[in-house]
């Protein structure tokens, strides 16, 4: 395979149902503004299946796509796999993760719509660095609020963001009322929800400035379909077949990107059989395995719409984890709807198991995966080694390594120093955080 896909593929026409409508928050009287390019809204709601990749985005894709896919024979041997394991690697771009696939697309659409600056919040820094580079590519200014604790652990993520000309602020910052209030209340700077809240507040100060986020939105998952589309072609070129596809889930864009093209292709009769799609989540944020299907906010500030999602509660206090990119309380509404109908499966992985799988992969395949990707590798290893009776694979497993771990070496240092397994989420705390959420009505979720 020598070319990246020329079109993204939407799974929406193949679902057989509509996604539940968001519940928009009450807003005080006053004028309304368009804060998002219409093309992104169209991509989120339309039944159109193929969306041509705009040439300016395709040109940037050509620098790092097609992304490599290979059979990980040495990893298979290390984990005593009973079936082949194929790896799709998304770490080969400037951001070091799959996030760049949608960052480029979004920056292009916002620029075309006439916005001059994009503002975002970032936890691990992968999204922040992806957006900073994408904004530089399309001549947009960029402002990033990065979770303070994460920035201290990963200072070179901050360097990368600044290298691309973005304004970087440690969250909580003194730039926003939310940040000043959090600082005054001695709140720890370890919340992605707070960084996002600051970004939302700051973006509102100028109509040509837009808040932009890149994981759980349906359009983000569409842009990530390049991963799975390439993988299908690459497996075919190898004469290989898989019956299981695994990706890690924070909100769901990496998992959706690698897995949903397999769902669409199977529904369209293009694959010999449907694949089992396995979402690997962090056991610190077990929304798909232990959460409830309810309407919840996408961040703890409550400024965004309430979406139908599997959630552990937007106000649940997520414990620290090295898989910062997975520290999100809810799954994307698209991924959640598919989970609700048993169209996807899920496994929760602890960080010690994830980092251990990452270390085995690094030493066997000589590619260092991000801690987030370690969750997918651990889940893939369980399935390929026959340790998950309900998810048995007979033909092979495809796993997406969502990014490299070269800026996450502190996490591997802690593994080498004897990092203990994280504590499973407390059932009582989960019940408390979700008790007041409105369940998705059977008709809305039908």
């Amino acid at each position, binding site marked *: 395979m020598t070319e990246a896909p020329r079109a993204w593929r939407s799974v929406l026409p193949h679902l057989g149902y509509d996604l539940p409508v968001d519940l928009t928050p*009450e807003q005080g009287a006053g004028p309304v503004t368009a804060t998002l390019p219409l093309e992104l809204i*169209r991509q989120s709601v339309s039944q159109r299946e193929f969306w041509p990749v705009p040439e300016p985005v395709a040109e940037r894709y050509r620098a790092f796509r097609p992304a490599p896919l290979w059979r990980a024979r040495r990893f298979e041997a290390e984990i005593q796999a009973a079936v082949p394991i194929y790896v799709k690697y998304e770490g080969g771009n400037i951001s070091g993760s799959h996030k760049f696939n949608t960052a480029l697309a979004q920056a292009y659409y916002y620029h075309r719509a006439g916005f001059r600056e994009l503002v975002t919040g970032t936890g691990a820094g992968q999204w922040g660095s992806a957006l900073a580079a994408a904004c530089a590519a399309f001549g947009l200014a960029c402002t990033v609020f990065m979770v303070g604790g994460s920035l201290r652990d990963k200072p070179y993520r901050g360097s990368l963001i600044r290298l691309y000309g973005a304004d970087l602020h440690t969250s909580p910052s003194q730039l926003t009322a939310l940040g000043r209030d959090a600082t005054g209340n001695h709140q720890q700077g370890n919340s992605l929800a707070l960084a996002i809240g600051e970004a939302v507040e700051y973006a509102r100060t100028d109509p040509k400035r837009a808040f932009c986020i890149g994981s759980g939105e349906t359009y983000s998952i569409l842009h990530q379909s390049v991963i799975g589309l390439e993988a299908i072609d690459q497996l075919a070129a190898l004469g290989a077949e898989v019956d299981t596809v695994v990706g890690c889930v924070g909100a769901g864009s990496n998992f959706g990107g690698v897995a949903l093209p397999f769902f669409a292709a199977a529904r369209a009769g293009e694959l010999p059989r449907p694949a089992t799609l396995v979402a690997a989540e962090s056991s610190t944020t077990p929304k798909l395995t232990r959460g409830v299907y309810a309407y919840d906010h996408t961040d703890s500030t409550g400024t965004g719409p309430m979406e139908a999602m599997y959630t552990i509660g937007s106000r649940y206090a997520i414990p620290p984890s090295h898989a910062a990119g997975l520290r999100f309380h809810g799954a994307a509404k698209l991924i959640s709807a598919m989970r609700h109908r048993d169209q996807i499966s899920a496994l929760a992985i602890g960080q010690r198991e994830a980092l251990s799988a990452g270390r085995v992969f690094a030493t066997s395949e000589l590619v260092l995966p991000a801690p987030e990707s370690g969750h997918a590798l651990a889940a893939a290893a369980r399935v390929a080694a026959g340790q998950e009776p309900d998810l048995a694979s007979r033909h092979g497993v495809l796993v997406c390594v969502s990014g490299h771990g070269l800026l996450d070496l502190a996490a591997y240092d802690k593994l080498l120093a004897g990092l203990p397994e994280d504590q499973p989420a407390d059932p009582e705390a989960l019940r408390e955080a979700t008790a007041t959420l409105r369940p998705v009505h059977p008709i809305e979720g039908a």
Partner: protein
Amino acid sequence: MTNRTQVTEAVKRLVVRESRLSVSPTAVADDEPLNGALLRVNSLGFLGMLVQLEDELDLTLPDDLFAGRVFTTVADLVDVVMDVTKEET
């Protein structure tokens, strides 16, 4: 060609639906605020409504006409859509 009456009727139908009202669209005045005492169209719902408007009127609304622009009344939206229909004809 789409005329102003058709556009106005379509916009009023959609703002009534978006506001979850049971009133007749004809009861909505042209200068009615989009987000005020009667209509409750917020910025998030507004975008989805624009995509529905494209389907109803079979046209494509260019992004650069909307980004960063402030819409106060029903007529504000009708004016922009009319500009698009003129460009398309």
